[in-house]
C-alpha cells in the first residue's frame, strides 16, 4: 500500500516552513510531504507545533518563511473550488450551538457541490445523532461527530483533523475510527490527523510523522516505521551489573528502562539480525527477546530522545556562555 501511495503526487507539500509567535519559534524550517491517499498520523508533544502546522496548511495562518501547497495549490491562494475539496476539523472548533443538526446541515450543504445527502443521513444514523436536537445540547463527543458528519458529507479529497478524539469515550472513539476506516476504503481521499490518542491513530494510520519543537523528527510509512523500530527485552545474565550494561549502551538504544536484572529498550534501525546484534552487546548468558514496538512506544522514545538532545544543547550553550 505504501509503495502505491508514495508513487503518486503529494496531497500536502510543505517546504522549509517557519512560524513564530513573537520570539517563540513554533515551526522551524519544517518539511512535510503527505502522499495522496494516505492516512497520516501527526504525533507530537504538547507545544510541538502540530496545531500551528495544520493552521498553516489550511491557510488560517501564514508561514513567515517557506511554502505550503495542497494538491499543488499554494495554501495561501486556495480558491473556493479547492476549499470545497478540503475538510478541516479544528481543535475546540465552536459549532453554531443555536442550530439543530438539521439546520447545520442545511447551512453547510449549499456550500458544496459534492454534498452527499445520503452519506450525511448514513453517518447520522451510524453516530445515533438526533437531527432535531440543538448542537449545544449534544455532548462533546456528539458535537465532534456532528463536525465529522459535516466534514465527511462533502466527500473531501483531504480531511484534516486536529484532536478529533478529545472528549470521546472509548466506544465513540471506536465508532469514529471504524467510520473513518470504512469511509477511507470507499474513496480516494487523504486524511491528516493529529491526536494524543496514539492507540486510535495506530489503528488508523498508514503514515506517521513525529513533530518535536517545531521540527519533523521523522515522516514515513507505518510499516517501514514498525519494521525499523523494535522493542528489546533482555534478561541480563552472568555477574555483570545492569548499571554497567546501561553505561555501555550503544547510541541506537532508546528509552532504556530497567526492572531488577531485566531491561527494555527500543532500537531504531532493526534488521533481521537485530537479536544477535543486541545479544553481542550484552554479557554472556543474557536472554534477548525482540518484538514489534507499538506506535506509542516509538513516539515516547523519540520524544524523550529529542528532549534529552535539546537539554544537552542548552547545557553546552550555557557552559560556553559562562566560559
Amino acid at each position, binding site marked *: 500500500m505504501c509503495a502505491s501511495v508514495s508513487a503518486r503526487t503529494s496531497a500536502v507539500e510543505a517546504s522549509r516552513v517557519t512560524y513564530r509567535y513573537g520570539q517563540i519559534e513554533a515551526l522551524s524550517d519544517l518539511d512535510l510531504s503527505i502522499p495522496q491517499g494516505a492516512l497520516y498520523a501527526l504525533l507530537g508533544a504538547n507545544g510541538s507545533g502540530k496545531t500551528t502546522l495544520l493552521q498553516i496548511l489550511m*491557510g*488560517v495562518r501564514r508561514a513567515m518563511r517557506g511554502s505550503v501547497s495542497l494538491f499543488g495549490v499554494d495554501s495561501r491562494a486556495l480558491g*473556493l473550488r479547492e*476549499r470545497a475539496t478540503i475538510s478541516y476539523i479544528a481543535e475546540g*472548533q*465552536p459549532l*453554531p450551538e443555536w442550530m439543530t443538526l438539521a439546520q447545520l446541515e442545511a447551512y453547510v450543504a449549499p*456550500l458544496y457541490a459534492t454534498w452527499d445527502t445520503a452519506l450525511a443521513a448514513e453517518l447520522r444514523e451510524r453516530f445515533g445523532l438526533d437531527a432535531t436536537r440543538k448542537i449545544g445540547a449534544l455532548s462533546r463527543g456528539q458535537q465532534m461527530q456532528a463536525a465529522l458528519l459535516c466534514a465527511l458529507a462533502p466527500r473531501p479529497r483531504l480531511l484534516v483533523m486536529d484532536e478529533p478524539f478529545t472528549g470521546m469515550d472509548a466506544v465513540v472513539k471506536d465508532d469514529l475510527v471504524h467510520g473513518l476506516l470504512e469511509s477511507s476504503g470507499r474513496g480516494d481521499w487523504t486524511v491528516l490527523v493529529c491526536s494524543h490518542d496514539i492507540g486510535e491513530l495506530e489503528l488508523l494510520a498508514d503514515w506517521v510523522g513525529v513533530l518535536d519543537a517545531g521540527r519533523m523528527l521523522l515522516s514515513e510509512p507505518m510499516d517501514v516505521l514498525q519494521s525499523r523500530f523494535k522493542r528489546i527485552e533482555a534478561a541480563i545474565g552472568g555477574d555483570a551489573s545492569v548499571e554497567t550494561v546501561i553505561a555501555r549502551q550503544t547510541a541506537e538504544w532508546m528509552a532504556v528502562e530497567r526492572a531488577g536484572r531485566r531491561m527494555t529498550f527500543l532500537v531504531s534501525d532493526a534488521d533481521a539480525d537485530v537479536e544477535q546484534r543486541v545479544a553481542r552487546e550484552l554479557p554472556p548468558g543474557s536472554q534477548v527477546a525482540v518484538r514489534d514496538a507499538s506506535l506509542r512506544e516509538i513516539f515516547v522514545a523519540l520524544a524523550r530522545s529529542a528532549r534529552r538532545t535539546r537539554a544537552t544543547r542548552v547545557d553546552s550553550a550555557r557552559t560556553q556562555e559562562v566560559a
Partner: protein
Amino acid sequence: MSWIRQAAHVFRKDVRQWPWQVFVYFVVVSVTVLRAEDRFGLAGIASGVMMMVTTLFGMVFVTMVVQSDSPTRPNAFWGTRPFHSSALLAAKLGFAVVIVIGMAAAGQVIALTGWNVPATTVVRVTLGGAFAYLMWLFAAMTIAALTRDLRSAIVAFLCMLVGVSVVMGIASNPIVTGASARMVHGWGSAIARVLGVAVPVALLAFLYRRRDVRYRAWVAAAVVFVLFFIAAFDTVPSEADARPTGPAVRLRATLSTSPVLREVHVRLSAIDAPANQRLSFFVDSSVVHLSNGTSLHAAGGQRPPVTVHPAMLPTPGAIRWLGDSRNGQYVTEAVLPLTPQQSHVAAIGVVSADVWGKLYVAVPGELADLPLAAGASVARDGTRIRIAQVDVEPDAASADIVTSYLADAATGLAEGPLTYTMVSPRFGEGTLTEQRNSSGGSGSMVLPASVARSDSTRFEAVTPREDRGITMAPGWFTGARLVVFQWKSLGHYSTRVSTTP
C-alpha cells in the same frame, strides 16, 4: 453558490441566530422614539440616555454578529469552509446597516414626523445621524474582529477610546498644532468622513481575507478610531459661504474710545440696508491707528456678532408695532479689546481704526401664530412651540413658553433665534416681549448626532412708555395671540470698515 447568494445565506443565518436580540433592539428603539416624541410619560427619561442605550445596544449587537463568524479566530467555523470572505463581510455589514441602523433610522424618521419638517430635511437629518451611528458601529466591528469574545471586545474598545481620545486631545491642542483643529473642518472633515468609511471597511476586508492577525492590525484599528473620532464627533457646521443676493450693504463707522482705553469702541451703522434684513457684524481683526503714526493690531473674534441693523418685523394682518423705534438710524458699537501693553501704547491717542469682519444677513419669517392661551402648540420646520402658562392682566401679560428645536447645526435647522411677539387682532397692534428667565437642556433623537434642545422661557409683553405718547388700551390682551418669528440666514460676506473722523 454565487457571491451574492452566499452573502444572503450568511445574512439569513445571522438574523435567525439572534431573533430575541433583534426583538429587544426593536423595543429599545421604540422606547427611544416614544421618548423623542415625549409620549406615554417617558419624558422623565433623559433622551440622551435612550439614544446612548440604543447606540450601545447596536454596538454590542454588531460585536456579537461579527464574533459569531470571527475573521481572526483560527478555529472559526467558517474559516476552513468554502466561503467568500468578502461575502461574509458583506453579510455582516448588511446586518449592521439593514437591521441595526435601518431600524434606528426608521425610528428617527417616525420621531421626525412629529416635528413637521420637510421630507428633504428628514432625509438629511436621518442620513447625518445614520452616518454617525455607522462610525460607532465600524469602531465596534473593528474591535470585534480583533478580539475573541464580547468581554475582551468591550475592554479593548474602552482602552482604545481612552487612548485615542488622549492622543487626539493632545494633537488638537492649539499649543501643539495651531492649525490642526481648523484643518479637520472643511475639506479635511470631508476627507475624514470618506476615510472614516473606507478605512474600516478595508481593514475588515483585509482581516477576513488574511485572518492571521499581527500587531499591525491593532495599529490600523487605532487609525480607524482616530477617523471615527473626527467623523463621528465633528458636528461643526461647514460655514455656508454663500453671499446674499443684491448689492452689499455699506457700513459707516466712527471711533468711540472708552475713557479707560482698555478697549476701542467703534460705532457702526448700516447705510441703505433693506428694511426686512437684519445685519449682524462679526469682527475678524482690526488695526488701530495712533496719533504718532503707528498702528496696533487689536484682537478679533468677538462673539456674539453685533447687530448693526435690526429688521422690521413683518406685519401679519397689517398690524402696527407699538413703540417700534427701529425705523430710525440704528447705531451699535463693536468692541476691539486691547491688551494691557496695547492700552499703554494707545494712551498717546487713537485717531482711526480699520475693521475686517463678516456681515451676516438674515430675514424674519413667521413661524407660529397661536392663541395666547395655555396648551396652545404648534410644530413647524423642526421647531415646536407650546404655551405652558399664561398670565393676563388688563395692561400686561406674560407667558411661559416651551420651545423645542432640532439643534443639530449641521442639519441646517434652527437657523436663528426666535422673536416672540404678542399681537392684538382687536386693536390691530403688536408688541415685542422681553425674556425674564429661562431654563432648558439638550437631548437626543434616536440616532447619534441628532440633538433636540428644549427651553422653557417666561416672556413678558413690552409695554410702551407713556412718555412717548403710546399707550395700551385696556383689554388689549383679551383675545391676543402669540406670533413667533424665526430669523433665516441669507448668507454672509466679508467686508472692511474704516472709521470716519
